[in-house]
């Protein structure tokens, strides 16, 4: 695997594509994408926040397709040990739905005036930031309405992620379910589907 940044342990990668609704991050480490639903931020002083909605790993050069290499090797790790160049030639990217931004030290849970710059550093968020978004859930409507095949999974994954990061917030799951119910209105089937993805523990 490529060397992670020990100097900046919370830094995951850099923005390589960016628009009003989402940004794409190239990870410093192969397979280093945060889990689906994770809250991340891009930029240093006035960051833009986003929820991880999609990730993929592929060759850096789109004209070179990976081929099967593990026949006769005892484990998957050995494929990488025996072919160390793979860590340099494969890359993991993830997409993030933009959910808010920070301005004058204040976190706002709606779209920023402009998306993050290309090469903005993308980092993990602190618990206080996660709490702000978990309490508000204003962004949930844009995730549910994003017309992504995985929208419901992203919504459920964010709630799971927030509950895990903030175990002291015991009412978070119930409050989130209520908020989802109000957002989805009569669509009880969809609501049930999302709630089934958020276990009690």
């Amino acid at each position, binding site marked *: 695997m490529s060397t992670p940044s020990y100097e900046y342990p919370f830094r995951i990668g850099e923005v390589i594509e960016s628009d009003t609704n989402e940004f794409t991050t190239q990870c410093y480490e192969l397979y280093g994408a945060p889990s689906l639903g994770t809250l991340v931020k891009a930029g240093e002083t006035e960051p833009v926040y986003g929820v991880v909605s999609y990730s993929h790993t592929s060759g850096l*050069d789109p004209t*070179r397709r990976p*081929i099967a*290499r593990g026949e006769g090797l005892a484990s998957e790790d050995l494929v*990488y*040990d*025996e*072919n*160390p*160049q*793979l*860590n*340099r*030639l494969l890359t993991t990217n993830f997409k993030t739905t933009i959910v808010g931004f920070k301005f004058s030290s204040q976190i706002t849970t709606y779209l920023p005036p402009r998306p993050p710059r290309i090469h903005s550093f993308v980092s993990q968020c602190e618990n206080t930031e996660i709490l702000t978004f978990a309490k508000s859930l204003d962004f949930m409507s844009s995730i549910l309405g994003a017309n992504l095949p995985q929208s419901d999974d992203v919504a459920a994954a964010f709630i799971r992620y927030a509950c895990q990061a903030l175990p002291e917030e015991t009412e978070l799951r119930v409050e989130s379910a209520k908020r989802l119910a109000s957002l989805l209105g009569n669509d009880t089937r969809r609501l049930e589907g999302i709630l089934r993805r958020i276990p009690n523990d």
Partner: protein
Amino acid sequence: MALDLERTAHQLDTMMSGLKDFSSVQTDRLGESLNLLEGFVQEVFLGKLDTSSGLFQWTPPIFPESPSKSIKEPSIPVDYSVVGVDGSHIDVNRHIPVDCFLINTGSAYLRYGAASEAHLSSSPKLFVPPDETVISDPNNPHQLLQIQGTILGAIRAVKEMETLAMHLKNEELANSEPVPVVGLVDGTLLLLDLLRPGIPDFVIDSVLTEGFLGALNDIKKTAEKSEIVVASYISLPGSDEIIDGVRMLACPYTKSDCLYHCGDIKKGTRPCDSASEGLLDRDIMSSLLEEGGRSELFKSNFHVARNYYGDNEITFFYLNTGYEIARVEMPAWASEKRGNIDLVHAVVMEQCRKGGGYPTALMEAHEQAVISTSDRQYFLNLVEEVLERNGIEFTTSQKDRSKRLRWL
């Protein structure tokens, strides 16, 4: 339509019927050459080589004791590194107002074993006029040779070897617990194009002696301190040096004086042709070498090269990689130790397995070095932009303009 494909296809059909006839003759010739190698006696061969010196018109290498032997694949160390270097260039474009060229050198450092890792890099170098695009005679500054074509190819080989020397030196300095390292370049180490008649001595001195062989000497110095070996890999080699030796074995005369005995005989009907004409070394080796096996070590014997190469005289062996017969060349100082040859053999075989028939380190170095068609166009655009930004009009030839516009 530019190419009349119908007529071309007809010509291809004619070519194929000729090749079929040739193929059956070739099989007979191959059989005879294998018989000759089976009965090879080194003393007899060396004696005949000596007595025919200057009279035999081919250039056989120095044969080993058992030229038809296949040596099994040796075991490979657990921890080792491979450094592959390759290059690509943009030649001088005489249709633009500046005579510059660019060489891009790509490198792949691959370490295997407990601390496996990889580093891939490329380094472009632009050569600009007036000084970098010509080679001048130090004794006569008015005597200049413009670098392009074959000479540029040789300069690229120098850059590749210098890059390999630098990486091997860094590897030697960086590792407190060194592991065996094999440095690989693509193509031959024998720069015979530079030794053709008509190439001035000052060019040979500058490019071959100071440049290419200078870099090989640097590697030799590094190799004195640690287990570093250098080799070059030639895929689908077109060499016929061993075949030249087979010609001598097939020659019925005590002294192989080609002009005296066969000067009037048509090509293809000379006595030696029955075991050699139209054959390449790889044809023989594909019959002799088992999969994974290598031949014994041969030593190239080109008179023109001997004066320049010294310790770096080229030795080579053939290798049946399982995908093809490849040629591996090593400077004589590197192949002096049997252990070094075994290391190169084992590592190149493993690299070919990993690379699906071609050494991974060279494949990745090539990927780093390659300059795509679009990059070539960007380069041209950049040159145009820089010239115009500096108030120099970017002119091109009418021929180039006409090729690009292609109007009706």
